[in-house]
């Protein structure tokens, strides 16, 4: 297998972007990544794009070709493929791009992720997100998507003594980071009380425990490592790529509070990279709900099972902590345009590893991990990136 580098990144602002269409967003992110990578259109061998539900959100499928079209690549006739794995669509697209170069098939690939969620109403957006869960055996009986994560939270609190305050502190931390990210949907700090007193959605999760409905797109340019030097001096290598699956429904899992797909994807990525959780300097994890970040830091091996809440309380995961988590603001504050999220995580890691993350820069960051989850844990990708 060939080694693969990220040589360019591009991100739109995340948020309620009323004046931007699905097409505008992905074209903007893609152009930014291509300019950042210092490549030309003729250099690109293929496009992969992650999107969870363009069909329900904007009434458009067939977006592989669409993205190539709106980005100006229709007459180069390069292959353009859409990848879907619910909220992990972006991470899957990154992995497909990575594999296509590692295999020797392509040299340079653009990977995009996009979602335009605000063209439908809030109820419709929530129902579309619920399609990531098991429609026949969870949603049919009234389990909403927040309720499924809420059931993980109830069990975590029962089994390990995790508190609502610890959950809330995840949101407080991620908003503090988001306040330092000019592309974040929410760029303001929030107080613990605001999270604790927010409107109840599905107990124990309130509105401020949930990531928002967002519009946005992200893109990266991947290149065979041996050719990356032609384009940039700041080479960021993908040293590990893991993907795993689990049952679609939460109730059929081995353990309600462990996302085994995360455990297995991480194990593969660590092994390939030849590192352990202790070697990771910072991580972007899938905090679609506050409880999800607590489970993630446990399942990724940063802390023992059950100690995630305490780790957050002890400020281990803040920007100046021993393991900064979600320096971008995470899904909670940066926003969660679902298909874009997994790609945007890579963008954040690349900025950090290049030393270009501005006010939220983690000093001396050399190795980062990105963790992207689909549904309540049926799909997971983990990528490990290192500055060369």
């Amino acid at each position, binding site marked *: 297998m060939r080694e693969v580098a990220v040589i360019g990144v591009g991100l739109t602002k995340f948020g309620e972007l009323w004046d931007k269409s699905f097409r505008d967003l992905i074209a903007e992110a893609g152009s930014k990544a291509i300019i950042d990578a210092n490549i030309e259109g003729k250099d690109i061998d293929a496009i992969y794009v992650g999107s969870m539900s363009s069909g329900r959100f904007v009434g458009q499928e067939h977006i592989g070709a669409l993205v190539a079209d709106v980005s100006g690549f229709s007459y180069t006739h390069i292959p353009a493929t859409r990848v879907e794995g619910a909220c992990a669509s972006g991470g899957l697209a990154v992995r497909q791009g990575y594999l296509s170069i590692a295999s020797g098939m392509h040299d340079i690939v653009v990977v995009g992720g996009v979602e335009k969620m605000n063209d439908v109403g809030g109820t419709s957006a929530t129902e579309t997100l619920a399609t990531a869960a098991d429609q026949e*055996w969870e949603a049919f*009986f*009234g389990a909403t998507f927040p*309720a499924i994560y809420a059931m993980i939270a109830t069990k975590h609190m*029962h089994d390990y003594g995790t508190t609502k305050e610890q959950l809330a502190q995840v949101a407080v931390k991620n908003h503090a980071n988001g306040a330092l990210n000019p592309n974040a949907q929410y760029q303001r700090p929030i107080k613990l009380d605001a999270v604790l007193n927010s409107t*109840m*959605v*599905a*107990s124990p999760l309130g509105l401020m425990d949930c990531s928002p409905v967002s519009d946005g797109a992200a893109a990266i340019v991947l290149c065979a490592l041996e050719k990356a030097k032609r384009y940039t001096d700041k080479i960021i290598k993908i040293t590990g790529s893991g993907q795993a699956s689990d049952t679609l429904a939460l109730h059929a899992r081995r353990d309600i509070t462990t996302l085994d797909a995360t455990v297995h994807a991480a194990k593969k990525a660590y092994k390939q990279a030849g590192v352990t959780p202790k070697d990771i300097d910072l991580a972007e994890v899938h905090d679609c709900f506050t409880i999800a970040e607590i489970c993630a830091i446990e399942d990724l091996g940063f802390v023992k099972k059950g100690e995630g809440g305490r780790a957050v309380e002890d400020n281990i995961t803040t920007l100046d902590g021993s393991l900064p988590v979600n320096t971008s603001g995470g899904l909670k504050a940066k926003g969660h345009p679902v298909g874009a999220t997994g790609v945007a995580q890579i963008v954040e890691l690349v900025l950090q590893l290049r030393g270009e993350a501005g006010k939220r820069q983690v000093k001396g960051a050399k190795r980062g991990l990105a963790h992207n989850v689909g549904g309540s844990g049926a799909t997971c990708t983990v990528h490990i990136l290192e500055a060369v």
Partner: protein
Amino acid sequence: MGEAVARFWREIPQRYNLIANKCTVCDKIFFPPRDACPYCRRKSIGKMKDVKLSGRGEVVTYSVVHVAPENFEEQVPYVIAIIKLEEGPQITAQIVDCDVKDVHIGMKVEQTFRRIQEEGYTGAIYYGYKFRKAKT
């Protein structure tokens, strides 16, 4: 929603009667029924046998839903739970006929047949299982 009705009536054995199936190779029981046992895989093909579940179990975890999809809006706040049935499978269902504050992990429950959701005033009404506190 306006879907074809077949997708709802073909689930009747499960949603009305809790029909599961059992892998006769390893004796594990699955609900909803599976075409192949995920433990025995190819060895189990053609060896899955229907069994009816007792409908008794206990609450593994739960949440009180306050913000619900349109078809469930009339029911809020309602309790959604994962229930471990005494034959082994875990399922997601509502807990009803009790104060939401009384629901707890480990609570013994039993199946009851109820209206699950309705598509507004004129749409279809869907029935199936919910659970309530066990009488014994």
